[in-house]
């Protein structure tokens, strides 16, 4: 349905996106993962015909979007990363406004506004001014606006940034429902692995403008088939302990959290006794040592040597 062919965007001397190749089939939810500055937003701006690429092409139903954007624009709904709403207007007024610019009028417009408000759970708050909404409600309305004209393709640029877990779940469920009930094709960008794991059939991972991995969730996790992830929690993080772990020849990568250290080691390595020994030698009291199932986060760590939210 949609194809990105060697898509490149260069700003002065810097590549924001370099030779990106992707495809999206009708009815699937595709995740585009990467940390901040990976080039996700630039990629989807080019995909949605808002930014002209330096080179490459975007094709929709085998026709170039760059040459003829109108047919694609007709079927695409865009959820930008920012709250792209008039905050002095009410939720209903915003929907009426964006509905009108999509040439919806009269009863049809009213019906669509009611339907979207119902879908995003804001029917009771339709008369409230948007600036008085919580972050989560604003995000929901931000999505609702993109759904007014019944798009076939929904492009969502980090739609859950900065909201509470309850609103995030609501949004994720809404996206899932839209895909299942209406066979809506969704491109979902995020730097939250768990969202992408929950929603997406296939995943593309970007870093520094490059595509570094792609495939289904299982295929991506297979990248880690030769390694396993071990999570070590403790009362207080100790630099000396982290340093000795890094110097251990069996440990491939080390990342640290507040009270947690995650290490990647070869799949057949037995490092539990070694970890306990190192903890004792550095005077650390361990709370737990867990052998974790690999996650997309671990894959990203393996591929780039950094955590996704760095």
């Amino acid at each position, binding site marked *: 349905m949609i194809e990105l062919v060697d898509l490149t965007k260069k700003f002065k001397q810097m590549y924001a996106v370099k030779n990106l190749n992707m495809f999206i089939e009708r009815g699937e939810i595709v995740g585009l993962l990467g940390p901040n500055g990976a080039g996700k937003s630039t990629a989807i701006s080019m995909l949605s015909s808002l930014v002209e690429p330096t080179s490459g092409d975007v094709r929709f139903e085998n026709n170039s979007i760059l040459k003829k954007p109108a047919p694609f*624009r007709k079927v695409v709904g865009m959820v930008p990363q920012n709250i792209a709403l008039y905050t002095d207007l009410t939720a209903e007024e915003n929907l009426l406004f964006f509905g009108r610019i999509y040439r919806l009028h009269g009863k049809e417009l009213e019906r669509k506004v009611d339907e979207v408000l119902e879908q995003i759970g804001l029917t009771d708050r339709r008369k409230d001014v948007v600036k008085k909404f919580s972050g989560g409600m604003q995000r929901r309305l931000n999505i609702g606006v993109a759904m007014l004209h019944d798009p076939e393709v929904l492009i969502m640029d980090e739609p859950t940034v900065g909201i509470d877990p309850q609103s995030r779940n609501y949004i994720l469920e809404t996206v899932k429902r839209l895909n299942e009930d209406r066979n809506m094709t969704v491109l979902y960008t995020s730097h939250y692995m768990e969202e992408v794991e929950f929603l997406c059939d296939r995943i593309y991972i970007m870093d520094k403008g490059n595509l570094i991995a792609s495939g289904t969730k299982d295929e991506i996790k297979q990248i880690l088939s030769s390694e396993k992830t071990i999570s070590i929690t403790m009362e207080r993080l100790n630099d000396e302990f982290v340093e000795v772990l890094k110097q251990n020849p069996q440990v491939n990568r080390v990342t640290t959290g507040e009270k947690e250290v995650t290490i990647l080691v070869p799949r057949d390595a037995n490092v539990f006794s070694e970890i306990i020994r190192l903890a004792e030698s550095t005077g650390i009291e361990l709370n737990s040592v867990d052998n974790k199932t690999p996650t997309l986060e671990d894959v990203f760590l393996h591929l780039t040597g950094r955590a996704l939210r760095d």
Partner: protein
Amino acid sequence: MIGILLAKFKGFIRNPWTFVIFTGMSMLMAFIFGGTGVDKAYVPIHGDEKIKDSFIGQELKELEGFQFSWMTEEEIKEKIESGKAEIGVVLGDNDFSIIVGVDSFNADLVQQIISGIYQEKLEREQILLAAGQNSSDEKNILNEMDLAMEQPIFEIKSASFRGEGAFVYDNSLHRVFGFSLFFVIYTIAYNVLPILIEKRQGIWDRMILSPLKKSEMYVANLLYSFITGYFQVLVIFLMFRYVVGVDFHGRFFETLILLIPYVFSVVALAMLISSIVKNVQQFNAALPILAVSMAMIGGAYWPIEIVESKFLLMLSKINPLTYGMEVLHGVAVYGYPMEELLFPISILILMGVVMMGIGIHLMERRHV
């Protein structure tokens, strides 16, 4: 396009404070500095009782625009030394002298007026002398003459306002025009700014993806800015014309019409600024600097005629406010016909078209 306008006006009704604040500021400043139109320049004057009761005294009493206050010569000097008066006048039987404290344009004007009165006095005396009548008929002759002067067979009027160094100054109108044209820059600019904000927020991206044309998006936004800006000046002018009672010399309607090119050029200027700055903070920093500079060298605060620096005068030639003031003064104070105002109007329209063109071009290049 109508949809965008409707949304903008709804937003305006919910949040009219930018408009209200700048309209209020314009009115307040014009009111404080310009008064109600009855302000007269204070001029202390000395002359003996005979002169005070004579033709000269009567003429000075009837003069509009100056408040002559009789006192001793010493008192005049004191007033000037303490800065309470700019100039003072000492009247003699056949001549007068002017004591100048501050070399302002009022000094020339007072000298011109009093010379005129003395000349008229001399003419009357010559007429009486030529008539050779006795004193009882003097009154009749002079009355006959005044009557004849009031009802002349031919009325000849001549006026020249573009002469070197001479200009007519109506303080009240100047302040109303000056502060209106100055503060409307802010209102218009803060209504154009949302284009930049909406582009950053992604609202414009949404509209670009819709069937809406980009030209409609620009026209709707700029039209809204124009309407609010024009409405602000309209409210201020109506207020000063009908509530405060400032005299527009019968050209109120023309003033409102000829305001249009200025408002258009300011909308274009705001568009240009929005396209150059990188963010709202830069816009907020640049706007007051630009607006105040424009007001200073464009004659909004004080008459451009008193600016002597050639460099500032040169800068004023590329300032829309200079031409805005020229048009409004031209129509209301000088009573110029339309042909006389075509030059500043054309400049304003040209500036508007050029700035709008560059602004939209830069905006499109930088922000897609």
